[in-house]
């Protein structure tokens, strides 16, 4: 649900727009992994603010619940028990996973539905569900494996960075709920300054590779991490070392796109000819029943 003004758009999926000259200041959510205690207050706040209901699951031998991001859970704490080979000490790395709000968003690039994914000048990448066709290309386009398709309405869902709250001058619900201020929100400039102070503190405690995760491969992100071991992002539940948009998406957006459109046009023409020759398809009662069963199975 987009709540910022259409004038604030800088990108719109499968369409071209002229961004307004006045841009909003870029925002960022900073997740300081070194301050996070993995309490899941962010998960609860996210479900409650977005009015989503998740199922009561099971324990599978880990602390993650639910076990992955879902169309309802836009954020998830991921827990990694990592033995530091240098100190032989256990470190319990807890990372809040969710949309990174890339400056160069792979989801938006991959999306074929006009206006289903938009990017605002403040950096927020948002899904506009009324335009979503549920094709799932955004998942393929995302280097962080974030969007999830709802089996109920066949639309893609992910963190909105609480664009509705940000639009009225509030920070995201997760940041508001975080008891240890591990999640903070502000201008990206300010967040980077704050992160630099945190890194100084972490280095003074012996984390010589402490650093910011703001990956250039996607043009930087509007969700940034402070990591104790920024040289090894993959130890934090497979945070990508150097995330990039899949070459398939890049190609799709280039030459292939036009080739594909040509192919669709040809199929269209063939279809019309087929109709003229053979007449319309009829839906049999068997088809109806199959459709009904399929629908019930999913609801």
């Amino acid at each position: 649900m987009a709540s910022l003004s259409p004038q604030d758009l800088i990108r719109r999926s499968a369409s071209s727009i002229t961004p307004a000259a006045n841009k909003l200041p870029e925002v960022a959510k900073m997740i300081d992994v070194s301050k996070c205690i993995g309490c899941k207050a962010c998960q609860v706040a996210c479900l409650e603010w977005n009015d989503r209901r998740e199922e009561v699951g099971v324990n599978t031998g880990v602390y993650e619940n639910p076990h992955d991001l879902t169309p309802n859970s836009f954020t998830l704490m991921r827990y990694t028990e990592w033995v530091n080979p240098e100190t032989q000490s256990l470190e319990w790395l807890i990372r809040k996973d969710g949309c990174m709000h890339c400056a160069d968003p792979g989801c938006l690039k991959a999306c074929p539905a006009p206006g289903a994914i938009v990017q605002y000048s403040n950096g927020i990448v948002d899904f506009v569900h009324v335009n979503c066709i549920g094709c799932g290309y955004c998942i393929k386009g995302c280097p962080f494996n974030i969007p999830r398709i709802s089996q109920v309405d066949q639309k893609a869902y992910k963190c909105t960075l609480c664009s509705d709250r940000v639009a009225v001058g509030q920070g995201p619900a997760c940041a508001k709920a975080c008891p240890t201020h591990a999640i903070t929100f502000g201008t990206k400039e300010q967040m980077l300054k704050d992160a630099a102070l945190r890194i100084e503190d972490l280095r003074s405690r012996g984390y010589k590779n402490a650093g910011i995760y703001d990956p250039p491969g996607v043009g930087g992100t509007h969700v940034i991490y402070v990591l104790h071991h920024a040289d090894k992002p993959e130890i934090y539940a497979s945070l990508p070392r150097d995330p990039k948009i899949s070459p398939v998406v890049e190609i799709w957006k280039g030459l292939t796109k036009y080739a594909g459109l040509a192919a669709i046009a040809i199929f269209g023409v063939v279809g019309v000819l087929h109709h003229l020759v053979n007449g319309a398809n009829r839906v049999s009662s068997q088809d109806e029943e199959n459709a009904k069963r399929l629908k019930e199975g999913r609801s």
Partner: protein
Amino acid sequence: MTNSWTDIKNTDLVVIMGGNAAEAHPCGFKWVVEAKAHRGAKLIVVDPRFTRSASVSDLYAPIRQGTDIAFLLGVINHCIANDKVQWDYVKAYTNATYIVKEGFSYKDGLFAGYDEAKRDYNRSSWDYDMTAEGFAATDPSLQNPRCVWNLLKAHVATYTPEMVERICGTPKDKFLKVCQWIGETSAKNKVMTSMYALGWTQHSKGSQNIRAMAMLQLILGNIGVRGGGMNALRGHSNIQGLTDLGLMSNLLPGYLTLPVEREADLNTYMSTRGFKPLQPNQMSYWQNYKKFFVSFQKSMWGAAATKDNDFAYDYLPKLDVPSYDVLRAFELMHQGKMNGYVCQGFNPLLSAPNRKKLTAALSNLKFLITMDPLDTETARFWDNHGKYNEVDPTKIQTEVIQLPSTCFAEDEGSLTNSGRWLQWHWPGGDAPGEAKADTWIMAQVYLRLKALYEKEGGAFADPIVKLHWPYKEAGDPKPDELAREINGYVVEDVPDPNDSTKKILEKGKQVVSFAVLRDDGSTACGCWIYSGCFNEAGNNMARRDNTDPDETGAFLKWAFSWPVNRRILYNRASADLEGKAWDPTRKLIEWDGTKWAGYDVPDILPTAKPDVVMPFIMNPEGVSRLFTRGLMRDGPFPAHYEPFESPVVNPVAPKIRGNPVARVFKGDMEQFGDSKEFPYAATSYRLTEHFHFWTKHVWVNAVMQPEFFVEVSEQLAKEKGIRSGGWVRVWSKRGSVQAKAVVTKRIVPLTCDGKTVHIVGIPLHWGFMGAARKGFGPNSLTPFVGDANIETPEYKAFLVDIEPIPEPVA
């Protein structure tokens, strides 16, 4: 807490031991994060498990559950041996120099005076030598071999780093690093805070765990200072309020004590509550006991409490046993001697030990009344829920009456937080259905009881029919009316003795604080330590001004902190004998030549000269106690005792099982398991996702942590063939549970006394009611024994066995 949550930001070193602040107190934990981020503070976590607190610590040391005293006495031993002592503080503000009576001794795990048959001590030798003038004898030179310091030195000498490793399983290098960091805070400009909770209290020697750390903090000079203190993190939003208001079977509000049988009249009662100073010029503030007590009686019985009837002293019940704690209550139900039970805001079927015994006890009752916002397991103890509650309802005759009550978000009143702040709150919504405020329910019950007594009479009706009940609407006392009563008010004008045209106190006015309470019946006060919370200035608990001059963390205009809005207890000890702060950057109060003043309300008479009146004004000594005389049942010093169920024999006292004076009921000793049959050391704990047994009724919390599980090390899992996410059965001498297994690196086997000790972790949030999946609580397994002083059950250390099982059929 001696200090407050907000004060934790002032510390240099946080030691979390006997608790898991990040996990169980995530909101308060923000002040630890603050100290780390802005002060460069370090965090040490000592725990059997690598907890959420440990995940953000600078140093983690494992320890076997139930061995904290050995660890802490080891640290004290290290500090003494390496001169990491705040000497000026120790000599002036503790009883280190006091000389102990001949006859006191400690040998083979026992102090002088032990009576095995009674499981008790004759504590007469645990006291000071007295001078001819009637004061305690001291030796400021610390040369006397019987002075407290030398006795302590000898007492802790056993606990070498090697012995600590042998008992606790803490690797020596880790232990020494902890010692080093803690020892550094003996400097006058360095402080450490201790944050603990039920990880220390829920042992058969829980009180002594806390004493051991308190002694260490005194030796380091860390009590009464900013960023220091002994900080008990209370497990409920208002559990501090519960103890303050005397909701213990042996207490009256404000830590006054209920009389015992042999105290048949007020004079006898007061004869042991005189608190004569043990040194000249000391305040010994409990000398005012009678003022608080009489004012309490006046608030209870108003005009019926007169000087002639000893202020209705006879109306008070007289204890025939030390206390009617939860264990004794269930024991009596079990024996069929307690037939009715009013259970208000409590779910003992999950929170008291040995569930089988609890179910049998509740089944013996004639009636059970519950008052709770939730449909608790206790209220449904008779309801068959398959293996989760295997009972036969046709065999249970107990009549259960459930009275739905409001929850904290639906009513008005104050909550007292861990830092002693009374914070007023307002309802966020209306109560659902027929739920009523607890005060309304209690008033309705009372008025009907009173009417019955008035109509039909009965044995000794006076305490009921003469109860002072001044509320505007008798059936519905309002929170502000109760708060004003607790604060206290003037019953009769008190004229000024120097000028009879003036009054010191005016009838009908709220008292300003407990300082003006009197023992002649002219004042009334429901709870003296809360006095000042709602005086003529208004409802001070509702204050919301968060200004904080010089950012000391005191926030004096926010809410009300007992006593008298003081934020740090013993704050006089933050200054030296000349009244100057030990650390000028942590100034709290200082002596300006005529009076004490500063950022906090002085914890001393403002005009008390710094070199004369000592800081620990509640003690007759004026100083703090490294040696507690006969005030604790199990010793004037802490000593290491194993849990009643332990994987090893006590290395320092092999003949002693558990705490030698802990109360064990008949039949319960036989229900303790041994390590041959039950080889694994189990412990119980909370998880952040839940709050006790409440939030499993909340859908979203149930989503976050849906299903009961136990945690084991990778090593134990391998040994037993346990798969992470697979099913296990865990059983003790008293019961058995089924759970999912979480196999984790966060638990590692320890080596104790040459033996590998595996730990099984059992979280406590599941039952058979609510939104989460049905499960068990650790109390199906835990032993029926409590702390020797306060009877808090031993939930944190017991023995179990474990095996993988196939997935149970639902």
